[in-house]
């Protein structure tokens, strides 16, 4: 009883102990906030990574691809049909895009993905990321343009009439006033344009009689490839400068299938931009209509008309285990032809990097709590010195060394529990109101703390796992207890007479 009484009394009367409580509290709160934000980022990133990738990917080792996607999809269906919900063959190849902005040619290194938008939409999110399916909002969040397509309309390669009209007006205007800056098919092309035209003709592209008509090759282009962030001097806000958009033409350079690969170039009309929220995708991917990409790369057999593919994307049914499906498919497909993996394995290095980052942050933050532990040790030691005579009194009244030790250990546990408890509450409140806090800090400092254009999230994402909170709190209590062991042992070991005579 005396242990409990003295422990609570010391807690109430020793304000220096408040420093220990605050240090534990800050450590715990920081760990909860950082872990929640990291988990939020990680979850959001996984969601977005998975968004464009299907559950399972069957990829050819060769850039040339494999003939007859229908045949291979039948094999896949026969092997794991019960687990497969949808499949979509695609062609993936590296390349370059070029477009003109402000009189300069801008060239970007990209991954070109040939898709059929309807089947692609069945294996992963596509329309959700296309700008034509989203409303356009102003700075205040008011909708200034409704979505051009309803969510129920499947994605296609048609240029929306609004953009088609704008394109016609633009080209006609430029033809009238600036004959030099004519569209891609005009006779004033430079050398590279001539080469493209030559290749396009070889490849069989029929020149349209309408110079304003879109090209046969159509693309959805990554948002970051055609925009550039800048700070508006008037408002101080970060805005996006759009360099190319729907209705504009871009040049695409890539290589043909076959040995050796030959460079090939073609024009494509931008149908839409996509914004997945993953910088990796939005700054590197260009979705192209698969038929045109196959044609340009020579992936269509001129005799049989058979087409080649480099990847089959598979969406699994709800509840199917991706790893089991991967194993089944690996066993069924001929060795050396295909690489089968889940989307997580495909993005393994990126996901692993996030996990490693989270682990390192946790170690660093735990060191902060450990520093708090040393603070507790120092404060406890001081309290034991200060209470030396009290310890002597207790011993003279018959208190055992173990009893005296328990007072200080209980003191440590209490400080740990109080510090952890308050830290958990503070941390959870911080996480709950993190965006409001960020807004307050931005207002206070006049500088954007969380810039959504950099981090690519409209608000700071958070996810709090109860077990994480539990382990953080338990860790802090453990550190507080460990830090109090040494002073408690010293208190227990004090000689009663010497303690009573302590000045």
């Amino acid at each position, binding site marked *: 009883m005396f242990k409990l*009484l003295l422990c609570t009394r010391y807690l109430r009367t020793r304000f220096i102990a408040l420093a220990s409580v605050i240090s534990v509290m800050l450590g715990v709160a920081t760990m909860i906030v950082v872990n929640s934000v990291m988990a939020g980022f990680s979850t959001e990133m996984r969601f977005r990574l998975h968004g464009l990738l299907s559950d399972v990917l069957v990829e050819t080792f060769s850039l040339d691809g494999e003939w007859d996607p229908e045949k291979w999809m039948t094999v896949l269906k026969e092997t794991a049909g019960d687990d497969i919900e949808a499949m979509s063959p695609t062609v993936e190849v590296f390349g370059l895009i070029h477009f003109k902005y402000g009189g300069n040619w801008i060239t970007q290194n990209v991954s070109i993905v040939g898709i059929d938008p309807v089947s692609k939409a069945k294996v992963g999110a596509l329309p959700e990321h296309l700008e034509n399916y989203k409303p356009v909002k102003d700075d205040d969040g008011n909708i200034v343009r409704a979505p051009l397509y309803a969510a129920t309309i499947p994605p296609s390669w048609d240029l929306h009439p609004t953009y088609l009209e704008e394109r016609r007006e633009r080209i006609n205007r430029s033809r009238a006033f600036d004959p030099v800056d004519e569209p891609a098919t005009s006779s004033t092309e430079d050398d590279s344009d001539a080469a493209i035209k030559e290749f396009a003709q070889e490849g069989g592209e029929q020149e349209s009689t309408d110079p304003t008509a879109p090209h046969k090759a159509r693309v959805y282009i990554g948002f970051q490839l055609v925009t550039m962030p800048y700070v508006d001097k008037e408002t101080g806000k970060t805005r996006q400068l759009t360099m190319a958009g729907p209705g504009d033409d871009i040049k695409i350079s890539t290589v043909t299938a076959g040995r050796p690969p030959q460079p090939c170039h073609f024009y494509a009309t931008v149908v839409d931009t996509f914004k997945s929220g993953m910088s990796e995708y939005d700054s590197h991917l260009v979705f192209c209509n698969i038929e045109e990409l196959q044609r340009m790369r020579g992936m269509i057999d001129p005799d049989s008309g058979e087409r080649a593919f480099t990847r089959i994307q598979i969406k699994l049914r709800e509840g199917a285990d991706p790893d089991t499906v991967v194993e089944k498919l690996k066993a069924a497909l001929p060795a050396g032809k295909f690489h089968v993996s889940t989307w997580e394995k495909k993005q393994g290095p990126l996901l692993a990097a996030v996990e490693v980052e989270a682990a390192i942050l946790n170690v660093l933050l735990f060191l902060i709590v450990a520093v708090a532990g040393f603070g507790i040790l120092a404060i406890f030691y001081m309290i034991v010195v200060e209470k030396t*005579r009290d310890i002597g009194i*207790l011993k*003279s*009244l*018959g*208190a055992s060394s173990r009893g005296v030790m328990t007072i200080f250990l209980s003191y440590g546990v209490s400080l740990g529990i109080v510090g952890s408890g308050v830290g958990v509450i503070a941390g959870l409140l911080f996480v709950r109101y993190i965006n409001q806090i960020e807004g307050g800090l931005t207002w206070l400092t006049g500088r954007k703390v969380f810039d959504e254009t950099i981090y690519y999230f409209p608000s700071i994402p958070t996810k709090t796992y109860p077990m994480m909170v539990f382990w953080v709190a338990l860790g802090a209590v453990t550190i507080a207890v460990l830090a109090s062991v040494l002073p408690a042992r010293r208190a227990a070991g004090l*000689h*009663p007479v010497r303690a009573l005579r302590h000045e």
Partner: protein
Amino acid sequence: MSETIKMPQTHLASLAVAKSYSKGEHKIPVLRGVDFHVRRGEFVSIIGQSGSGKSTLLHLLGLLDSPDVGEVQLYGHRIDDLPARSRDELRNRVFGFIFQFYHLLPELSVLENVLIPVMIRHSLWDFWKHRKAFREQAKELLNKVGLGHRLTHRPSELSGGEMQRAAIARALMGNPEVLLADEPTGNLDAETGAEIMELLSSLNAQNELTIIMVTHDEAIAQLAHRIVRLAEGRLEAWGEAA
């Protein structure tokens, strides 16, 4: 514990106890073979000059310290070599201490200070079960020492005499057989000191409480049944008080 022991005339005794303290490489002898006996219900004063070893003898008798040589006996049984746990229990059940500087716990109220010995003796649950009885006993003791109106006061709010009375109440709370008082009036004015001595004498007379008191004040020592004088670590003289 005391119930199981057949009580001889000698209540508490030290047999040829010697004690020295180390200071660096030097050993400073404080007690050099002291034989001391006290009978049950006796009030003994130990007097001597500063550094004569009075307090050290009291600490050895009360098991706050261990002799280098010799024995401490309770009812003829050696107790100084008992395990630490048994010695703690004896300090809690058999001995009551009163110190010159009162040694009350500053964070606790007067009532809580008095309750401390029973809190140490009993488990949390036992104390909780009997808390009303304990509180009543403590209040009764505080009334007896004239502090019934100071129950919730902190030691810092009491005078020296009041603090010593609270310390006496605390020492009595554990129903001790032996009260060991180390200069109980040493820090008090003459009038308050006399009051304290009166209180100790009445406790000795009414409760047959064995009291061993260390003092350097001859006048105070005269209030005991017997006076023992220590000089340079040796028992110099025994004598009945005047």
